[in-house]
């Protein structure tokens, strides 16, 4: 798992509106140069934030990227 690459990409998506726009237009092209595993690349291309989180993406990033943020539903207390 390339934890740094996943999170660096998430951070760039959050903080760089121009990069985010390129990603929204063509995810595969936008991340072509990123050092990702096949699974990580597939998750980004699918914009699957839950999968990205499972692969090591920090929760606060996957929940706060403008326009791409995961919006989890309440579950339960214990």
């Amino acid at each position, binding site marked *: 798992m390339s934890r*740094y690459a996943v999170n660096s990409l998430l*951070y760039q998506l959050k903080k760089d509106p121009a990069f985010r726009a390129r990603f929204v237009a063509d995810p595969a092209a936008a991340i072509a140069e990123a050092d990702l595993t096949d699974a990580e690349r597939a998750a980004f291309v699918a914009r699957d934030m*839950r999968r990205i*989180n499972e692969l090591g993406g*920090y*929760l606060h990033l996957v929940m706060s990227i403008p326009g791409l943020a995961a919006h*989890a539903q309440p579950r339960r*207390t*214990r």
Partner: protein
Amino acid sequence: MGKIVFAAAMSHVLDPEYYERACGVTGRQKVEAAMREIAAMGTRLAATTADALVVVADDHLNAFSFTCVPAICVRIGRTVPRMSQDHAEAFDRVLEHMPTIYPLHEALAGAVLEQGVAAGFDLALSWEAPVDHAFLSPVNTLHGTRPIPPLVPIWVNCFVAPQPTARRCFAFGQHLARVVAASPWRVGIIATGGLSHFPELSLARVGETDTVFDRRLIHWIERGEHEPLLDLTGDELHKSGSHEFLNWMVLLGAVTPARALVRYFGELPRINLAAVEWSLG
């Protein structure tokens, strides 16, 4: 001789709209109840006419990114800006209506940093890092329309493993108390975040909390029994979703053995909201 004149800890997304979106009407009602208690605490803080307010909080990968993630960082300088975020989502939206620049107590921040390094704390420093909701939601809720005193923002790395230990955070809080005692200033201190939410930082587990764990923490802080808390492990905090209790550990070190007064504790599916004040005598 200086003195800590106010100490409190509280949740740090203090926004009814956020909780209504996340938890429905009950979420709104509970955060409004917490905010009322925090505003009342702010009235008591204002009555102390504190010279400075130390704010111990965490970064949500906003200020530090992956260039560097300091274990503990002291913000120095004369002012500190609010974080900016285009098209803010979720907890970032909480910031939008808040002032964009805040005064910083340069002399106290410098003393915490310089005396800390001299005492063996390898502190990071920043002149430029902005502060996010973890700092500003509590600060603005405490102060309302009153002037905000000069801040001393201190970050604790609560989320990016390996985090500093609970014991180390407590020791750093004791350092803060020594610095204040040797200073000429009357100082307030708050710690923010929590309680239990986002266990294991897993999106699949957002919506779970560990109330049993939180009640254990509260049991100890109400009694001023801080020794058991020193042995809290990173694994315990991660699994329970109480990562941000490390901020509280700093405050506990600063006020130990004072007892906590729980002003508000409210369970929600997403998070256990809390507002706690210490009786400093």
